[in-house]
């Protein structure tokens, strides 16, 4: 997988060039279809509005901490946008090449497979940030109130851990696309599982007890908890130092597991001749 003389300066330069090429390729595709950008710009605030109005029915008539509640849900939406990147960005990168019939050409080229996936991840991460920024401003203009962000540095650190873990998860999913052709069903189920179980939109304490154990076994629960703690100073699930240590460990384990699984599935698919079956 890695260049022969890895880790030399040349190999890093080459990886960088491959990564840039993969990023530019995905960016060009995205720009070529402006409907995708329009869809992102319309859908993201609309999803927020859709859920927010639904939840309003349950809210007390005399709400005292409107801004905190608003920030809580808004960060929930950020976590959802980030995870959609993992599932439909990183995870689906291989599937997209399969469907376009270009996966074999790519795998035959003398380049690293991971650059295809990471290039796509980077493009989507950047467009996600732009869409999140646009949605924040839009909701502020429509009276949504300002967002709280008490510990920006810690938030960025927790976000970095989330992204490292999500790249690992995305690699695992990208590998699965070579195994499973009905990818959409699985990705939708995982996506909803994430929204319901990880505390993205409501604290895990709301989840009834036997199911809460499942939530506590999902690494994303802790990344989300730490980001929300950094943003809103909400209490953490575990003692803070222990939770940070656990999150660091989990993010790197996820990256490693994703990398190993992707390689293993790719090798298996090569032997079976199932790499490009769509």
């Amino acid at each position: 997988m890695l260049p022969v003389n890895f880790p030399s300066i040349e190999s890093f330069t080459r990886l960088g060039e491959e990564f840039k090429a993969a990023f530019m390729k995905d960016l060009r595709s995205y720009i070529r279809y402006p409907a995708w950008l329009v869809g992102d710009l319309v859908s993201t605030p609309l999803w927020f509005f859709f859920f927010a109005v639904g939840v309003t029915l349950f809210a007390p008539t005399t709400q005292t901490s409107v801004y905190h509640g608003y920030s809580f849900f808004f960060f929930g939406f950020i976590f959802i946008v980030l995870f959609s990147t993992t599932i439909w960005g990183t995870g689906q990168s291989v599937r997209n090449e399969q469907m376009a019939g270009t996966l074999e050409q790519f795998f035959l080229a003398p380049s690293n497979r991971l650059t295809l996936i990471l290039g796509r991840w980077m493009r989507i991460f950047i467009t996600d940030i732009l869409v999140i920024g646009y949605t924040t401003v839009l909701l502020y203009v429509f009276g949504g109130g300002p967002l709280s962000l008490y510990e920006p540095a810690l938030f960025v650190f927790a976000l970095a851990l989330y992204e490292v873990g999500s790249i690992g998860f995305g690699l695992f999913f990208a590998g699965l696309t070579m195994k499973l052709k009905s990818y959409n069903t699985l990705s939708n189920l995982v996506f909803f599982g994430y929204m319901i179980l990880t505390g993205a939109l409501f604290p895990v304490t709301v989840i009834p007890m036997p199911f809460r154990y499942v939530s506590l076994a999902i690494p994303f629960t802790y990344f989300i908890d730490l980001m929300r703690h950094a943003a809103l100073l909400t209490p953490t699930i575990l003692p803070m130092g222990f939770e940070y240590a656990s999150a660091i460990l989990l993010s790197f384990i996820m990256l490693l597991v994703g990398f190993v699984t992707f390689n293993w599935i790719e090798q298996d698919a090569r032997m079976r001749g199932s790499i490009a079956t769509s």
Partner: protein
Amino acid sequence: MGTLGVLAAIFWKGIKHYTRYPGSLVIYLMLPFLFTLLIFGMGRFVGGGNAALNFATRTGTSNVLVYEMLGGAVWMTGWVVVEDVGVALRDEQMKGTLEQNFLAPVNRFTLLVGISLTDIAITTAIFLIVVGVTLALTLPGAYLAFFQAFLMLLIGLIPLFGIGFLFSGFVIKFKEPYIFTQMVNLIFGTLTGTYYPVTILPYWVQFLSAVLPQTYVISNMRQIVLANRTLVSLYGSIFILLALALVYPTIGYLVFKKLEKDASVTGELSKY
């Protein structure tokens, strides 16, 4: 082969597709439950111990599950129609089989109605399973209400198919259906009161809600199941639905024919 034979062939083609790839049907069946679970979880967090009481104050019913599931089930039927009728011809474009279909001695209207027939079967299955399970668990004796709610759905499907015809024309013309259908489904979910009464939306948004058939279907189903109203007593909104059932398919088919004709002149019919 007569028109009935053509309709049957298109119908079975669609059903075979669903049975060959059951994942999409599974998703349609699960989404109403998952969305309801999400909204309920968020609502519990916001409302705490009084969440159900606050909900009842605003909607007139404490039966959160039935209220939300009826909205979710109707939303999914709209989702199926937009995804299937709207995107079906684009799928043929992508497979390179659209020209063969259009060259066959089959009326375009028959083609669209055939696709719609498959969706009547699929949406019926979704409704019977999703709403049937929900009512069996929460209101076990409500057979008559369930039957009337199903009739309500069938009336609402006619204008919905008209909207589907409209989209299939747009999709042939503008391509990129998936972003388009995602946005449309989300707009439908927001405007038609899927998880809330449309009366809490701003006045100008309610005007948009009023031209969508699902708004009446969801509202009437809730009246029938949760407020013991009958279909007959809801004749006013049923009359509006029947009017929409005339307007949408007519406009939808005319727009489809116009855009299809334009595409055949410019050679865009089979372009990726």
